[in-house]
């Protein structure tokens, strides 16, 4: 698996705080990478460094194995968190301008734009002024402009803020299509649940430091606690009695005509062990492993760090 972008020991200081402390991440080619963390953690600082808007105080960024320089600008598409368009400019003119700034020729920009506009069914917006469009419409245009020059790396900072669910799905589909065509995508967001099902890899950032990085599957594997959710019909007591000493009943609740139990079993056991113990006593209607959400993992990790430090 080749690497699209690599940050090596990147630090950034401002006069009264540290924005990034010794952050190293590695983003595989053709993946969707989630850069997650609460507001103010340093995500935007890192993204601005990748976009060469600011420079790191220490460390370096490599793109395709080469230290970042001016020629990489046209290979990156960036949708900032603070985004907008010239209100008084016409949609088409503005889109053309932004694409040409990314290095496309006027002709190229025009054919590509017409193509995208037709696909999104917004071709009759071409001569409208931006201020005449709704916020969601503006976001669509902004997205098109971000990805139009077919960048190798697409960086989306808080991409779904301001989108309605229909547009969100439309954009998600486009993002997956872009990934299939070979682009690498970075999602940066504090709203971890909004992107975790799309991401292949993630990095968690908290208070200027990277606290976790890896593929989503591996991380979830590491952080799952061998907990299961069991849906059954039968007697509560019978269920409890069926559990052996290695199992712990964390919670049990009624759901419609059934009961739902949350069980944590010993590391050595697996779901089959749990089932074979339960089957003689209750009528099982469902069993599923409880996978921790990124949010849970984040909280768990932060608590761990605080405990070791304090």
């Amino acid at each position: 698996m080749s690497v699209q972008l690599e940050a090596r020991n990147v630090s950034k200081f401002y006069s009264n705080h540290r924005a990034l402390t010794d952050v190293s991440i590695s983003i595989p080619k053709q993946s969707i990478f989630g850069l997650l963390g609460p507001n103010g953690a340093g995500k935007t600082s890192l993204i601005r460094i990748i976009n060469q808007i600011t420079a790191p105080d220490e460390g370096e960024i490599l793109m395709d194995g080469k230290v970042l320089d001016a020629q990489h600008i046209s290979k990156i598409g960036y949708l900032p968190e603070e985004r907008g368009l010239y209100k008084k400019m016409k949609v088409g003119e503005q889109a053309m301008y932004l694409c040409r700034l990314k290095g496309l020729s006027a002709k190229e920009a025009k054919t590509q734009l017409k193509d995208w506009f037709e696909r999104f069914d917004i071709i009759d917006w071409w001569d409208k002024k931006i201020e005449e469009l709704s916020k969601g419409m503006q976001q669509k245009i902004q997205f098109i402009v971000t990805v139009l020059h077919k960048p190798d790396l697409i960086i989306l900072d808080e991409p779904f803020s301001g989108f309605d669910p229909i547009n969100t799905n439309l954009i998600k589909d486009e993002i997956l299509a872009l990934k299939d065509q070979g682009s690498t995508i970075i999602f940066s967001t504090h709203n971890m649940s909004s992107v975790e099902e799309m991401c292949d890899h993630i990095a968690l950032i908290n208070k200027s430091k990277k606290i976790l990085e890896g593929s989503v599957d591996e991380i979830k594997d590491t952080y799952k606690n061998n907990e299961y959710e069991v849906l059954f019909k039968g007697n509560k007591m019978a269920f409890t009695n069926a559990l052996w000493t290695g199992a712990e009943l964390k919670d049990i609740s009624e759901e419609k005509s059934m009961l739902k139990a949350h069980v944590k079993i010993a590391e050595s056991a697996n779901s089959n062990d749990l089932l074979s113990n339960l089957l003689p006593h209750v009528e099982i209607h469902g069993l599923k492993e409880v996978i921790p959400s990124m949010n849970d993992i984040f909280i768990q990790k932060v608590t761990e760090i605080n405990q070791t430090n304090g």
Partner: protein
Amino acid sequence: MGKIGLIIEREYLSRVKKKSFVILTLLGPLLIAGIISLVLWLGLEDNQIQNILVVDQKKPVFANLESDTRVQFTYGDMNLEDAKKSFFESGFDGILFIPSNIERSNLAQLYFKKQPSVVAQRNIENKVESIVEELKLRQYKIDRKEFYDVKTNFFVQPIKFSETGKEEKVDNERTFVGFAFGLMIYLFIFLYGVQVMRGVIEEKTSRIVEVIISSVKPFQLMMGKILGVALVGLTQFLVWIVLTFTIVTAVTAIFFGDQLNPEFISNQTQMTPEVMQQVQGENQMNNQFNLADPENIINRINFPLMIGLFLFYFLGGYLLYAALFAAVGSAVDNETDTQQFMFPMTAPLILAYVMSTFIVQNPEGPLAFWFSIIPLTSPIVMLVRVAIGVGEGGIPLWEVGLSMGLLILGFIGAVWLAGKIYRTGILMYGKKVSYKEIWKWLRYSS
């Protein structure tokens, strides 16, 4: 250069295509031409003959008041009361009342229906004055010739003597032309500097700025905007000059015909000496703008030099201030927050303008020297000074050279400084910025 060219193009076109720009650009010259035409027209209006009834208590001393092309005196044999009674029925424009004590009071009254122009009034005054003078001469038994020999009108003539021995009369009139050029630069810097600032604020508040600086360097965006707006200004100036000139020429040709045509007048002057004198006399009254006259202010100005220096100082001054305006725009979130930064920045500009009203009188004093050397004020003040000429007999060449050199350094410095503030400022949202904060930004590496 490619990307900065794109930015300049957008900044230029988006402004030039605005309705307000088109309207202002077209209406500006109409307004100026209208005012000029009105002034000319009002001047010509004066050519109407004023019919004045003279009521003389010193009969018959003032019977010989001389009528001319602009005023017609009628010597009335009545007292003031009667004259006033019949005034409105009469065809007279005014009643000139000469009191019996005029040689002591030196005062006569002119009653009028419609206020006569200052020129007409002065004309009447002169005529009455010369008769009063005559009267006094007779009373004091002074010979007219002796009187004129004794009567003194004293002048000190300043002559500039340069090292090479060249002598030149000092001519402060020219500095007024320089002042006009300086005033244009002052207005231009303000008008377009503020446009740059608004543009920066607009990009910041609409949040497009981060999208753009992921494609180009903040410095390119800033310079593109400054240069684009400079081109807008130059376009507007050019259109104004061409249109104003065309309109004034057309209007004068249509409405005033030959009266203001200098060629016509100069042709006439060549005909006969008598006509020449007459015409020149009229000419000085009618219009001060005889272009054929080598002593005319227009012909005493070295225009190629002035226009060359105007362009240099305009561009230098504009670049310097526009960069500072851009920096202010980047540091704030909206226009109302700009005030705390605007004042210290525009103070030198306003000071330069105020000072140049004094420097007009004394273009070679120490005040003039220092203000024309310091880059913040030189674009305005130096233009006032150089109107008297550069080199021998004018402003020493080294002073102009030093001033130009410092202005170049000044705007490079301002652009550099502004660039540092700008690249940090445009990414700061929702934060009220202080001078201390800006000082920190200046020290950030990048």
